[in-house]
């Protein structure tokens, strides 16, 4: 299954929160996280049975926000 890349602004989202969310979502996808040029790059490779779509990304980024609240 193909890998998708997402970006979050590192001045608004913390890398720690992203890593924590990735751990919680680890049963659905594999994540690779890097920080570069003011952006957090998130590479997502879905596990079988998971579709990486807008809904998935929306839930994931919501989860990151929840970690920061």
């Amino acid at each position, binding site marked *: 299954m193909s890998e998708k890349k997402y970006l979050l602004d590192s*001045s*608004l*989202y913390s890398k720690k929160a992203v890593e924590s969310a990735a751990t919680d979502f680890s049963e659905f996808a594999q994540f690779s996280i890097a920080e570069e040029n003011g952006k957090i790059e998130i590479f997502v490779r879905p596990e079988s049975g998971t579709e990486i779509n807008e*809904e998935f990304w929306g839930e994931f*980024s*919501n989860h990151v*926000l*929840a970690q920061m*609240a």
Partner: protein
Amino acid sequence: MNTNEKSVEIKVGLYSLESIYKACYHFLEKFYVRLDGDPKEAVMVYFRPKSGTPEKSLEEALGDFQNELIHQALRAKVSASNQKIREYIVTQALAAAEGVTPEMKGALSGAEGMGGGSPSSKDGSDSEASSPVLDEELEKEIEKLLAEVEKSSEGDDPLKISAPWEDKNPSSAANAAPGTPKR
């Protein structure tokens, strides 16, 4: 921006990032929320309804979000202003549970006043330099209130939780091994 997405601009000078995060939290169940913009100037908060959330509620959500923002900003302000008194009350409660004597409490308060204990306030004020932890009068008032609470709850123990085990079970206590300490 998606067609069914609406946004609101928040000036960071008016609301802290912390307040923005906390306000966003309340909407995560029904909306996808994302942040963009410059955290030093203004932050854009985008809301997109999840499936099952009616789109017409989006406009209402923006209004509710702005209200929640004020709520969170006020909570942060109140929390900062009563931080010292909360820490004092917790310290007193823990000290009472540990059986710390009043003389030791005074020593603890003095140590905190010299900066050895609780964190300093965020606005950098040097109020800790002028009074130890709390105003003396306020400290006495709190002790008086705590004493009143303890007095009012005396005798209010229908399940006999505070009664020692030996009082509740005198026959078992009589059969206890010699040297068993009594409370």
